[in-house]
Structures are given as C-alpha cells and as structure tokens.
C-alpha cells in the first residue's frame, strides 16, 4: 500500500509537470505576450518599457529556463501575476472558482440523484416502462452536445416561455429565487451526460449482480424481493458507480468550459478561454495547473474509494 501511494504520488507530480509544460510552451509559441500591452499600430511602448517588461517576465531567456523559473516560484506558492490586470493569479482563480464549484457540485448531486436510482430501477424492472424511460434518457444524454442542450434550454425556457434567464449569475440578488433559477439550466446541461453514464454503469452492474449465484440462493431461501434488492444486490451493484463518481465530479471542470461559455457563467472555465485568447500565459498556466491537480486528486480518490467499497481490491 505504501509503495503504491508513493508511486501514485510521484506520477501525479509528473502529470502536473507535463500538463503545465505543454501549456507553457504552447502559449509562448502563440506570439509575443507583450502585444497584450501594445497592440500593433497603437501608441506602442518605449524601448525602456519593453526592456523592463522583458526583464521582469524573463522573456529573453530560453523557454525551458522560463518554465523552470515559473516552476520554482510555483513551488513556493507564488503563481505570478496575470498580464492583463496585473493581479496575483492565485487571487483571480480564488475569485472565480466559487461559481464553478457551485455549478459543479450541484450538477454532481443532481446527476447522482437521478442516474443511480434510475439505473437500479431499470435493471430491477427490466423491460418495463421504467427501463425504456431510462434507456431513452441515457441515449439522449450521451448523444446531445452539451452546448446544444444549453441552446435548446435557452430557446424554450428563456426565449419562448420566459421562465428563466438566458445567461448570467445574479450574485447580488438573494439565493432564492433569482440565483436558484439561474442555476437550473446550466445544471441540466452539465448533469445530463454524467447522469446517463451513471445510469448505464449502475444498470449493467445491477443486472450482473442480480444474475449471480448468491442472489439466486437468497431468493431460494425465500428472502423477499425488497430485501434481495436493497440488502443483497444494491450494495455490490453500487461499487462501479461509486468509483466513477470522483472522476465524474472532476470531469465537471472540463464540462464547465463549454457550459460557462453558453450561459455566460462567470467561472473558471470561461476565464480560461479568455486567457487563451488574451495570451495571458501566467493566468492560463495557473488554471491548467489547478485543473490537473484536481484531476490527479480525483483519480486518486477514485482508487481509494475502490478499496473502501470493495475490500477484495488491495494495492
């Protein structure tokens, strides 16, 4: 176990370095970041200013040295300043992360609360109406692009019916009803696909368990249908969905990039896209680092969850 943890930790670090290095090199290849301050054809900057900025951002050094400088600072907890607003990257991320976490957590809860029960139901009542509802739900969830769900939602609920706002996050207003209403559509758009995955995983796991010998034995003993399902089958059938749930939670980060663009949700995903277009490389690298850290943590948690819910697994 201990060896496994150490190994796991070191490869996690390796992932982080790989992710940030790729982004760092790519974003520096985009063009001169100083153009952010002085657009060509504008008033421009004096040679002294350019020299000072180049010195400050270490732009004259080779790329790999620049990356190492960044890495060294990051280890001490200093992610540098954003180019555009000259604020500490960490502060900017902290400011925006709340909106994304709120959306991701709500979507996670909704996806779990819809997907797993529907999966159990469609396995237990195989071939019934519930099974078909579940199957159609999953088919659409896995085939509809997230942004198309978003656009359909806006078309029907905001444009045609006028029930919900098309975009934005009214933080000034009280949580209920204004903020709650603004959460509904992004949540549905974000949660549908994971709910469909939950459903399919739970359904196939449940079917497999219900087909096993110990369930047949329990039935032969005369255990009631309810007890068979709740006490005997469900516990084992929940192993696969529980282990993917950490990964699904982390997956919302990436999903948020699209959903936040559709609904103008002021979170980290939208800011990441903006920072790419602005060539604000310290901010972008910081965000990517955060994404990668959360992914590594999430997949680690998934493995730990595996050993807890399924004692047969040992590392």
């Amino acid at each position, binding site marked *: 176990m201990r060896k496994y943890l150490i190994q796991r930790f070191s490869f996690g670090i390796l992932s982080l370095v790989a992710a940030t290095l790729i982004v760092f090199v790519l974003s520096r290849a985009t063009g001169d970041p100083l153009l952010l301050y002085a657009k060509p054809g504008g008033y421009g900057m004096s040679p002294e200013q350019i020299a000072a900025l180049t010195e400050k951002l270490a732009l004259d050094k080779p790329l790999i040295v620049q990356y190492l400088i960044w890495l060294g600072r990051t280890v001490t907890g200093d992610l540098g300043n954003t180019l555009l607003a000259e604020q500490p990257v960490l502060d900017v991320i902290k400011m925006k992360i709340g909106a994304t976490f709120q959306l991701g957590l709500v979507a996670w809860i909704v996806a779990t609360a819809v997907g797993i029960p529907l999966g159990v139901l469609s396995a237990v009542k195989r071939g019934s109406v519930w099974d078909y509802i579940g199957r159609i739900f999953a088919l659409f969830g896995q085939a509809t692009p997230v*942004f198309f769900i978003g656009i359909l939602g806006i078309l029907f609920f905001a*444009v045609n019916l006028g029930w919900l706002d098309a975009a934005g996050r009214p933080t000034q207003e009280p949580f209920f009803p204004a903020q709650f209403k603004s959460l509904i559509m992004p949540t549905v758009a974000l949660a549908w696909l994971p709910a469909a995955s939950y459903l399919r995983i739970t359904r196939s796991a449940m079917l497999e368990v219900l087909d096993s010998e110990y369930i047949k034995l329990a039935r032969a003993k005369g255990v009631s249908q309810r007890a068979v399902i709740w006490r005997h089958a469900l516990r084992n059938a929940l192993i696969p969905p529980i282990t993917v749930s950490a990964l699904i939670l982390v997956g919302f980060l990436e999903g948020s*990039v699209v959903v936040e663009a559709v609904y103008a949700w002021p979170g980290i995903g939208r800011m990441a896209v903006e920072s790419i277009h602005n060539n604000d490389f310290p901010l972008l690298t910081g965000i990517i680092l955060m994404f990668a850290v959360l992914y590594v943590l999430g997949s680690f948690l998934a493995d730990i969850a595996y050993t807890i819910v399924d004692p047969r697994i040992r590392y």
Partner: protein
Amino acid sequence: MNSNINVTNSPALVEVSLRSKIFYVIRRWPVIPILILSIMVFIAVFAPLISPMGPKEINLRGRAAPPIWEKEWYDANPKNEITYLLGADHVGRDVLTRMFYGARISLAVAVISLTAGVVIGSAIGLVSGYYGGFIDEFSMRAVDVWNALPFLLIAILAAVTFGQEVWIVMVLLALVAWAGNVRNVRAEVLTLKTRDYVALAKIAGASDFRILMRHIFPGVVNTIVVLATLRVGGLILAEASLSFLGAGIPAQTPTWGNMISEGREWLSTAWWIAMFPGIAILLVVMSVNFFGDWLRDRWDPRLRQLS
C-alpha cells in the same frame, strides 16, 4: 389442403406475422441506426450533387427565411425567389445545403482522427502487452499522464497557436482517441500471449512481429473494432464542441458545430439555424452509439462495464 389455403388466405394472420417479423428484425438488428448512418454517409459523399444551393451562396432577400412550412413569411416576402426547405441563415445561405456540406467535414474528421488514434493506440497496446517490462510500464504511465491533461483547454490553445485548420483538429482529436485503446488492448494481449499456440509459434521459430500480427492481432480485432465504434460519437461531439467554442474548424466552413455557434446569436428570431444541425449531430451520435452497443453485446460482452 383446404385448411392450408384458408390459413394463408386469412388476411389478419398474414398481416400480424409480417408486422411482428419486421419488429423482430428491428429489435434484433440495428436497422434504423445503420439506415441513418448510411444516409449520412451518402449525403456526405454526394453533397455537391444533391445540395439545392452552394454552401457559401448568399441571398440577401432571403435573410433569415424560415423553413418551407411557414408559408406566411414567403407570402409576405414575394421578392425572395428561393424557397428554403429548412430555412436560411442571416445572410440567406441555405441551412440544408450547409448541413450537407457539414456532414462531410464532421464525418471525415471523426473517421480520420479515429483511425489514426485507434491505429496508434492499438499498436502501443499490442507492443506493451506483448513485451511487458519497461516498455509496458512506460506506456501505461504515459497514458495516465495523458489522461490528466485538460484536453479541451489544450485544444483551444493549440488552435490559437497553430491557427484554425481542419488537419489540426484531426491531429488534436487523434491525440484524444489513442489513449483510450491502450489499456483494453493491452489487457487482451496479456491473456492471449499465454496461450499454447503462441508458445508453439515461438518454438517453430516465428519472429515477434509475425506472432504479433498473425497470432495475437486477430484475437484483439474484435475489441479494437468495438472500442472504435463506441468512440466515434465522442469524437463527433468533441469536434462540434471545439467548433462551437471558436477553436475548431475555421468559422466560414460549414460544420455542424459552427452552424450551431452562428445560430446561437439568432436564436430568438431564427431558431432553425441552430436547431437542425443540432438534430443532425444528435441523430448521428445516437446511431453510432446504438450500433456500438449492439456490436459490443455481440462481439465482446466483456467490455460491458465500459460506459
């Protein structure tokens, strides 16, 4: 004799059995998904021949013309001479035509990037499973590291860095596709290489390459095909998402993702611009997924845990 004639002549019986036969076939074989997919492929191949207009042909009199069934608009705008089957966008380009051309790009991007990704991923899986040791360790860790990358953001960044071109999107999607195959193919190879016939081939003096290609590869082909089919849908969705975010195929090119992205601005006045391409994506991805599920249940039920 007489009774036989009576049975076959009884219309109710014949009808019912035919109907149930059709249902039986539809339930057992993925008839509808294959039909939809073949129509889409046909459209993609013959787009220039069957399109009513050119994909970039504009007609300012037909700006935001609704689909053909909204007769009032066409009566109120007699100067517009073109009747649009599925409406027109904000400069009077035919939505249907652009969807036909979009099918070309969406399907071509998905198929090419999938093929590249599957070939690379399967090759790595085969080699690392067969040789084991350092190669195996290295490639499995590479897959782990790769999976931790936030792909969407890196793809947007790459599009900004290298410019928006179709082949760049293909490369990016191939980079997404390869990692998923390695683990499953490797696991399969690990069991296959312990078989007696592999040992016998080795004793007979077959080279590693020959063993891999002639004795192990045929055993994993099913897995590879099933995995590939299950991935197509995801790739089409990824391409559409990239185009939607303005980081995929260049904006003037008609792709389904681009059309939805454009149509978003005209949602309240011209819903058809975004709606029909969205439905096209939905249909194709659904059919591919359905077909993939069917193939998996038939060829490789062990992959059922893969969602």
